């Protein structure tokens, strides 16, 4: 219930929200947890395995029990910590993992079957009969498991990512973090202060400490105000630094609008930050550990720190009659805070013998809580003292087993933390993260005064590394400096189940059994029992589990060691880290200058790498792509076709050694190429396989322009950079991509020259422009380039103009082509044309083929070195048994060929050992009136004329095929040259 006069909430602003089927009212500044507690709601969730009733254990992001689902419909957000979710008008949250209701959960039967569901039970059963695993056991297990659910619909909310840079990143805005930020900022450092909470101040907002004579929260507010006023400081509240990465890079999740109902209109829900910091101060505080005792998991049993937080920050008492149990002085402060707030303290149970009465409440020294009752909410606890057990009525138990420094980020680069006997926990190992200094509670310093001083010192260390001077004066404010005294207490001995990992339902028994079964390494114990694998990643339970394991194995905790902390510190939504990619944002879209025109023509656009290219240009009356494709092929063979080939890579190469360079990167020779001429080139990888092919034109004595395939343009550019900078750095040449500068169009077919001559200022003929000629031309008044090359096998050209004129030239070319009985053609026709002509693409040069395989071995010039030459000569790559490029044509009843089919000898069974090869490309050739194909067959070149069997099990097609030469149309090349 609410406690008057306490808390940092705004009591003038009531906020109503929904939990399951009821509306509740809280105040601005409340979390779902604090508001529900204020309304007397203790039961907030169910555990993972036994579906035990659970309430809040903590008041922070480490909460393992009070997980809820926020919202509904496509936007529903599962596994949200009720202890972190701020309430706002219209907020609706639901409990999870309970059916039919939170109070009455059918799966609670598991809790009565617990003796059979202990550590690792599933490894020992569910094995018979075999088929039952997928059909019976697994579906049942899956349905029972899991916490909240996804909506199953596309994420409707906006997320973003951003980069930030600073001299110093301070992680955590408690006393240590605030002091570090103040010290560094006053010295002129460029500071980012990030804190996962909505209100900066850390424990100062949850305790009753005074700083510099002020109330803790007031001092914190003033510090934050000062920082907010400095130009060199960036405050990032509601921002969890989730991971430490190499060279001062940090990941951080900012919850931008989870505390508002604001969606859409550019408003993002979360922002994932990549923060680059030259130095960092980790001031992440500490996490209180529960104590394991029988039935220590009832709603109403929580950490003492959480009780004080609810009381002091939110003005809520989690119970009317609160008992306190601990092994350190915080138990006493908790009781004192409660009394001071007018809450009844049922009893103070301190496991230590030597403790004085600390206030006006019943104190049991040298005593333990060894049990509890109250299925859906705590009713009473059992206390054991001097061998005697008795019961104490209480609806809330505050327990404190001591504190664990939040060392997580210091372990993200794989360094282990160091055991401290003094605080019975692990502390950061200095230097574990280069440039990071830990300060305050996360460094094992627990008093407020100690935290303030440690924060200031850490900032000074950072400033020194940054070459900055701390400002004179500015001492550390006075504050409480009581020493932290505790006596280790991990698990209270006794019968029954004592919980360690609340969410995963791992008990002391489970850990002991794991040790008995020889899962004695901490990693084995974790993996066998699932201890520490819940959503809190063991923040609340790992230490106690370690201690229990250490006890069971007879090793010390330090020897036992910890499991590894890995990013993220607290869970990060995939939508945040993947922001921007949903829909089209995953990769850039590259559009040619003819894109809009092609779309307007009704051409379906298909992805080609990052580019989009037209598949075909349908005309009235054409109902299938094949009709359009066949017509376009016919146009090119009989009249003229126009195709945008701008997506091919174009690389402008200049310099005295340009020819020598090309001789090195191509297996054939280019230094001997005449000016104004074009040559086909084959490029190998250093391992002797084909990398890419294309044509390269010599425009001047020291000037070439290379073309690459669309697919390999990027790789080839990188390869050329590699060769020129790493392999042949002394060659004098420079090159740069001109792919984007030139819009280039293939004009192919018998009428291609006629078409072009209608546009060129100076008409061309075979004399001025023979096959494989190139040169500058003026196209409709614009300076461009013309290449007489042919991928289709027809008399063809490629004409290039600066991209600004691309769309205009494409329209003009298509119009002229149509006037000459042709028109635009797309990728489908382009593919048919090249297969008819036997031109290869990356379907054939797929990375496993050599020049030998495709019949181009002779292109590897004997007279010079080239990349890949030596490795291409390996015995295994010149074996006649290798699969060699061939053509296929149907000769049986089944006329269809399919790419991806495998090839077998007639009569041979279609098995792996009989496999003779495969089909890479097929097309229906309108020119020939039947299907044709390219592919690879063992000893293929020697098997032309052999009839074999094509088997495509995937498509259910088998066909008799004849192996033939991989050129189907105009093998002599008369059409190309004529």
């Amino acid at each position, binding site marked *: 219930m609410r406690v008057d006069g306490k808390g940092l909430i705004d009591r003038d602003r009531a906020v109503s929200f929904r939990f399951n089927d009821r509306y509740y009212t809280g105040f601005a500044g409340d979390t779902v947890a604090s508001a529900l507690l204020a309304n007397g709601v203790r039961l907030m969730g169910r555990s993972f395995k036994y579906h035990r009733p659970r309430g809040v254990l903590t008041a922070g992001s480490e909460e393992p029990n009070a997980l809820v689902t926020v919202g509904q419909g496509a936007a529903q957000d599962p596994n949200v910590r009720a202890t972190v979710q701020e309430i706002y008008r219209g907020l609706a949250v639901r409990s999870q993992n309970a059916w039919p209701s939170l109070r009455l959960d059918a799966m609670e039967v598991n809790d009565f079957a617990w003796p059979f569901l202990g550590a690792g039970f599933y490894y020992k059963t569910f094995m018979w009969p075999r088929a039952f695993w997928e059909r019976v056991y697994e579906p049942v297990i899956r349905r029972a498991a899991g916490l909240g659910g996804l909506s199953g619909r596309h994420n409707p909310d906006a997320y973003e990512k951003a980069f930030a840079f600073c001299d110093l990143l301070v992680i955590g805005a408690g006393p240590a973090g605030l002091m570090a930020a103040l010290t560094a900022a006053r010295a002129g450092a460029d500071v980012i202060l990030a804190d996962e909470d909505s209100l900066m101040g850390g424990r100062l907002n949850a305790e009753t400490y005074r700083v510099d004579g002020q109330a803790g929260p007031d001092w914190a507010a003033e510090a934050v105000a000062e920082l907010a006023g400095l130009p060199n400081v960036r405050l990032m509240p509601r921002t969890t630094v989730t991971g430490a990465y190499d060279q001062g890079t940090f990941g951080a999740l900012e919850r931008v609008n989870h505390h508002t109902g604001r969606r859409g209109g550019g408003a993002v829900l979360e922002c994932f930050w990549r923060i680059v910091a030259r130095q960092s101060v980790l001031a992440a505080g500490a996490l209180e550990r529960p104590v394991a005792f029988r039935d220590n998991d009832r709603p109403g049993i929580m950490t003492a720190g959480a009780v004080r937080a609810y009381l002091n920050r939110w003005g809520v008492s989690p119970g009317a009659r609160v008992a306190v149990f601990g092994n350190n002085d915080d138990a006493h402060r908790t009781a004192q805070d409660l009394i001071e707030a007018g809450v009844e303290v049922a009893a103070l149970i301190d496991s230590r013998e030597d403790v004085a009465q600390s206030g006006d409440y019943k104190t049991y020294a040298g005593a333990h809580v060894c049990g509890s009752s109250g299925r859906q909410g705590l009713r009473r606890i059992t206390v054991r003292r001097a061998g005697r057990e008795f019961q104490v009525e209480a609806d809330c138990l505050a327990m404190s087993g001591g504190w664990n420094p939040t060392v997580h980020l210091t372990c993200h680069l794989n360094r282990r933390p160091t055991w401290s006997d003094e605080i019975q926990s692990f502390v950061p190992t200095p230097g574990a993260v280069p440039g990071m200094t830990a300060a305050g509670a996360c460094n094992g310093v627990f008093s407020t005064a100690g935290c303030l001083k440690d924060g200031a010192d850490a900032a000074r260390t950072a400033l020194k590394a940054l070459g900055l001077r701390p400002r004179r004066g500015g001492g550390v404010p006075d504050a409480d400096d009581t020493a932290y005294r505790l006596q280790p207490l991990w698990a209270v001995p006794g019968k029954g189940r004592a919980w360690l990992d609340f969410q995963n339902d791992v008990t002391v028994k489970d850990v002991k059994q794991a040790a008995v079964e020889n899962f004695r390494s901490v990693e084995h114990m974790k993996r066998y029992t699932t201890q520490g694998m819940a959503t809190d990643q063991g923040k609340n339970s790992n230490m106690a589990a370690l201690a229990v394991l250490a006890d069971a194995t007879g090793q010390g905790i330090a020897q036992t060691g910890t499991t590894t902390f890995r990013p993220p510190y607290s869970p990060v939504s995939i939508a945040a880290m993947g922001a921007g990619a949903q829909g089209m944002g995953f990769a850039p879209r590259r559009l040619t200058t003819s894109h809009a025109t092609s779309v307007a023509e009704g051409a379906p656009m298909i992805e080609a790498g990052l580019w989009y290219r037209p598949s075909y240009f349908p005309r009235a009356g054409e109902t299938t792509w094949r009709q359009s494709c066949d017509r376009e092929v016919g146009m090119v063979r009989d009249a003229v076709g126009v195709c945008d080939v701008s997506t091919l890579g174009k690389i402008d190469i200049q310099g005295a050694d340009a020819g020598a360079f090309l001789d090195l990167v191509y297996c054939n020779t280019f230094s001997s190429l005449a000016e104004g001429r074009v040559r086909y080139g084959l490029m190998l990888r250093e391992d002797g396989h084909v990398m890419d092919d294309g044509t390269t034109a010599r425009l001047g004595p020291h000037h070439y322009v290379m073309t690459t395939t669309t697919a390999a343009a990027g790789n080839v550019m990188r390869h050329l950079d590699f060769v020129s900078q790493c392999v042949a750095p002394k060659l*004098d040449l420079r090159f740069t991509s001109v792919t984007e500068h030139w819009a280039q169009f293939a004009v192919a077919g018998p009428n291609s020259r006629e078409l072009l001559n209608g546009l060129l200022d100076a008409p061309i003929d075979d004399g001025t422009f023979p096959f494989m000629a190139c040169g500058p031309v003026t196209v409709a008044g614009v300076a461009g380039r013309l290449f007489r090359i042919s991928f289709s096998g027809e008399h063809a050209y490629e004409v290039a103009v600066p991209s600004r004129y691309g769309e205009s030239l494409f329209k003009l070319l298509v119009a002229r082509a149509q006037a000459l009985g042709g028109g635009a053609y797309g990728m489908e026709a382009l593919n048919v044309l090249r297969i008819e002509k036997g031109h290869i693409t990356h379907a054939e040069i797929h990375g496993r083929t050599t020049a030998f395989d495709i019949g181009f071995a002779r292109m590897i010039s004997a007279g010079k070195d080239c990349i890949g030459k030596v490795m291409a000569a390996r015995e295994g790559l010149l074996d006649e048994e290798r699969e060699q490029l061939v053509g296929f044509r149907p000769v049986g009843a089944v006329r269809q060929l399919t790419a991806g089919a495998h090839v077998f000898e007639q009569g041979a069974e279609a098995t792996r050992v009989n496999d003779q090869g495969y089909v890479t490309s097929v097309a229906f050739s309108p020119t020939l009136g039947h299907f044709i194909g390219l592919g690879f067959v063992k000893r293929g070149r020697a098997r032309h004329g052999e009839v074999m069997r094509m088997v495509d099990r995937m498509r259910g097609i088998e066909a008799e095929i004849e192996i033939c030469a991989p050129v189907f149309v105009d093998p002599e090349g008369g059409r190309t040259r004529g």
Partner: protein
Amino acid sequence: MAELTGKTPCDGLLPLEIGAVTLVEADPGRLTSVAPYRGGAEALGRALVSAHGLDWPAPNRMSVKGAARLIWFGRDMALLAGPAPAPGLAEHAALTDQSDAWAAVDLAGDDAEQVLARLVPIDLRAAHFAVGHTARTLIGHMTASITRLGPDRFLILVFRSMAGTLVHDLKTALEAVAARR
């Protein structure tokens, strides 16, 4: 004789004004990449000064003379923006016309830095990236050239074919930043 009509890369995509930021297509004029041959750097430098009054820019810097800009553009390479390159330069360097290869946009306004912080993995705050500074880096998933032209004004170049993606990415960032105001 048919005439060809030119079209700019961001034709139909810009301008945009969202929140405190404007995004318009820039016209940097003629673009020529200038890449000195081995040992040609010094002579090239002299030729540039005499021909265009421009100093060869240090890495990550731009030199300006009137309407002419020489923007550092990568390893031993600069982009001459504005004038046509003096013919003499070709002796010392590979000159390549890039006029139509790049989409150029001008991002200006109080929040311009905030917008770019959502897309660019380098520190673009004025203290570290002053007027006249330039960088080859990423914007979203695209390689880009980014230059600070003024206190809150940037010139951004990406491949022409990616103009649509550039505008989309910047628009999304503009809206997100505006929504935080």
